[in-house]
């Protein structure tokens, strides 16, 4: 059995920031199924929000209001307040660590405009901000390596709990297939999102719901799973991200007729309305036959920005266009469509990263979560661009601090190593022994297609019922899958199968949550209930496991400063 004071799963922004915090005093294991620098935080492009006021006067109050309005008033405002207040300090701290930022002529951190933010508040490093922060944190870990042991290419299978206390995790080494129990005083999940359940997504192949499903299987509910953000600018057919910074820098969205159609949907903010509104506007244009050449994409036009500006502020975007579709955005518009991007929902936590199990705030002792896998909830029904890097960093730090404080006070609890290990070994054995004929690839494609078609930008009761049914059928087919690689050494196939199993359950949870919410709010839009319904749904969804089924409960939203108001832009 492996023993560490604190075990952190996931080495993106949240995980590494948490590790830096815990390692001040305790011994930390940082486990990642890739390498830290390969984490998907690195794909974030546009920026990280903080009211520094470096280019225009700004305040945390404005940042808070923008975030709450952007989230369609489903955010827990006590958490939002602390989150936006800590933003400037956390940015300065990153800068002091060595993170590189684009600068103003006076040498201060430059800031640009972003969707839903009323002030230019996005601190950025050209168009690779996530990459810059990810590497800066990785550098800090390389500097302070003595207290942190990094387990590269290890996979986390399950959470070990006893009553309402978490005592460790069961993991395996992808390179050797060896299963190990990792005992810990505290566990932090920073396992990211699950955009891979959708056909068109910006997410990496690694974004597969491993963490949230391990928590769910241990009895922890999923909060607000129906709120999935579709990003307005995914590369046509591939979904690859073209940063919102392209619009922040002044890019236009044009339909097939060459019109700046956002005039109709958000006349005051135009292309810089929040993402849910822009993504729906795009989808409406496409559905109503005004896509480019009648097809299912529209144009992102940057030509008027000029080559110099594009090379200074958006060089990576330009290169992506050239490499992936042979379009140089200096000369031609880019074909884009809405793409699944971010999960507002996740493992429910309080504002200190502590995982909570119900509406009474009952704790799962020793279990913390941060970043995209967690739902604090600071983003409510729709996250604003640049608020996710901030979320990962702020709550990475906070969950690290909470875990450290908790772990200092408790001893290791007893863990039944044999029992825990056997469960995971049985999972492997079960998959290896399957004599089925179904192709996992076809099941995966069918799931992604289903979620895109019936649980995407526009939803209704009929579609969602079909979706839940079809996902359940896929879950059955999954048990009859065909495995080809039965070796132990670096068997990536078996891990893809395990991930698919997690995603099939996750897909069901998203659809069931969406089916129960008979209203439209933020990223969740029901054409049969096109209005927000505060009387019935100003509350967070909590989906619990209930045998093979799911059970839905709710918990209230924390409202402090801003009463829900009509949301227009």
């Amino acid at each position, binding site marked *: 059995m492996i023993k560490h004071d604190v075990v952190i799963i996931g080495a993106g922004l949240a995980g590494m920031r948490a590790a830096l915090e815990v390692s001040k005093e305790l011994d930390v294991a940082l486990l990642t199924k890739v390498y830290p620098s390969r984490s998907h935080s690195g794909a974030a492009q546009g920026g990280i929000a903080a009211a520094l006021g470096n280019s225009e006067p700004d305040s945390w109050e404005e940042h808070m209001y923008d975030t709450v309005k952007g989230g369609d008033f489903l955010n827990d405002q006590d958490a939002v307040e602390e989150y936006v207040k800590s933003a400037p300090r956390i940015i300065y701290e990153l800068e002091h660590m060595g993170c*590189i930022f684009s600068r103003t002529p006076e040498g201060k951190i430059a800031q640009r405009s972003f969707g839903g933010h009323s002030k230019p508040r996005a601190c950025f490093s050209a168009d690779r901000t996530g990459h810059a922060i990810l590497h800066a944190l990785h550098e800090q870990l390389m500097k302070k390596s003595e207290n942190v042991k990094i387990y590269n290419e290890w996979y986390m299978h399950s959470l070990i709990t006893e009553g309402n206390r978490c005592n460790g995790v069961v993991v395996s080494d992808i390179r050797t297939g060896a299963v190990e129990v990792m005992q810990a005083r505290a566990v932090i999940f920073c396992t990211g999102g699950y955009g891979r359940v959708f056909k068109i997504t910006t997410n990496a192949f690694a974004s597969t719901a491993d963490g949230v499903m391990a928590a769910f299987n241990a009895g922890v509910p999923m909060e607000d799973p129906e709120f999935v953000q579709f990003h307005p600018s995914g590369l046509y057919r591939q979904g690859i991200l073209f940063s919102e910074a392209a619009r922040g820098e002044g890019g236009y969205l044009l339909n097939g007729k060459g019109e700046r159609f956002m005039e109709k949907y958000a006349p005051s903010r135009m292309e810089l309305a929040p993402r849910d509104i822009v993504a729906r506007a795009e989808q409406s244009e496409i559905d109503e036959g005004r896509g480019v050449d009648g097809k299912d994409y529209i144009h992102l036009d940057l030509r008027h920005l000029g080559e110099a500006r594009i090379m200074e502020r958006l060089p990576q975007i330009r290169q992506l266009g050239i490499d992936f579709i042979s379009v140089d955005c200096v000369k031609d518009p880019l074909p884009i469509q809405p793409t699944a991007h971010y999960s507002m929902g996740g493992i429910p936590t309080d504002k200190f990263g502590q995982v909570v199990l119900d509406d009474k705030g009952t704790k799962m002792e020793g279990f913390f979560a941060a970043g995209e896998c967690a739902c604090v909830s600071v983003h409510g029904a729709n996250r604003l661009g640049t608020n996710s890097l901030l979320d990962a960093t702020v709550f990475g730090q906070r969950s690290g601090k909470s875990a450290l404080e908790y772990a200092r006070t408790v001893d290791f609890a007893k863990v039944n190593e044999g029992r825990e290990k056997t469960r995971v070994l049985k999972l492997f054995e079960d998959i290896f022994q399957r004599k089925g004929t179904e192709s996992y690839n076809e099941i995966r494609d069918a799931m992604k297609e289903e979620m895109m078609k019936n649980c995407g930008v526009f939803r209704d009761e009929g579609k969602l019922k079909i979706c839940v049914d079809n996902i359940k059928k896929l879950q059955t087919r999954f048990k009859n899958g065909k495995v080809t690689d039965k070796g132990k050494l670096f068997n990536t196939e078996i891990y893809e199968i395990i991930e698919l199993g997690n995603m099939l359950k996750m897909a069901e949870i998203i659809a069931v949550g969406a089916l129960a919410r008979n209203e439209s709010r933020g990223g969740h839009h029901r054409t049969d209930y096109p209005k927000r319904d505060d009387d019935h749904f100003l509350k967070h969804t909590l989906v619990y496991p209930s045998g093979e089924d799911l059970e839905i409960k709710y918990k209230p939203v924390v409202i402090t400063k801003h009463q829900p108001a009509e949301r227009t832009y």
Partner: protein
Amino acid sequence: MATFKIKRYNPEKQAEPYFEDFDLDIPAGSTLLDCINLIKWTQDGSLTYRMSCRSAICGSCAVKANGHAVLACQKQAASLLKKDGTIQIEPLGNMKPIKDLAVDFTPFWDKINKVKPYLQTHDNVPEKERKQSPEQFKLIDDSSTCIMCGACYSDCNVLEVDDNFLGPAALAKAQRFVGDSRDGKTLERVTELSEPGGIWDCTHCGECVERCPKPAEPFYRIKEIMAVALEQGVHNNNGARHALSFAKSIKHSGRLNENQIPVESVGYFNIKGLIELIPIGLRMLLKRKIPPIIHKSIDDVQDVKRIFKELDQ
């Protein structure tokens, strides 16, 4: 129909690697990674490689295609197709294969660690951000784009013969701090980087620039460190002496004084180094390869001197 000739290796099954052919119709617009994924998902699930973001930022999926390292998700598969309808795929070079296309990155990361890849400052931490001008940012902009994919490391010609060389990625990472106006250890850094295995062991072949999928282009970063090392007066090593002697010779006569450069490179007072030159000198003498003892200037040497003068200004 294209044939992907993929190098397979599974030490659990065979001791030696071998090539296996997979036929695939390349769908329009597919990247190399799309094709490898299709092969894994529809033909042989045991095919092993790394990948994650598929948008050229995570650095997982570098492999060799037709003998050269590429980022699989960044290359259009059709562009790699050879005249005979094949694409040859192998694991990255200069690292040990684990299984199929996955290699052991341990030496790569060990070398990144060696260059102290983190900001080291002298000053007290200010309340807000440290100031850095857009021009100063520009000096580290390119090196900071490195995604640690290992493509440069794979195809580095020095690493092929000298394990001790830090390699292009680690040196590019070093430039990220040597060039950072906020870093307070520039002299210490360039001194360490001038030691054997460092910047002066690069042979300037430029292969890493060709292979780099990002603007990091390590050789240009290595040259930038060399310039800083010389500016900072870190001359007490063969590489720096060689570079200075080279420049001196050109400035003086417009051509290389090939008798003088080796001596100046090891240093006039480096008795051991000078003695080590003797056998090479003798062999050259026997093969009649000794350059003329009397070193003549080229006819237009005044023009060369003028260029140097302008450069100095």
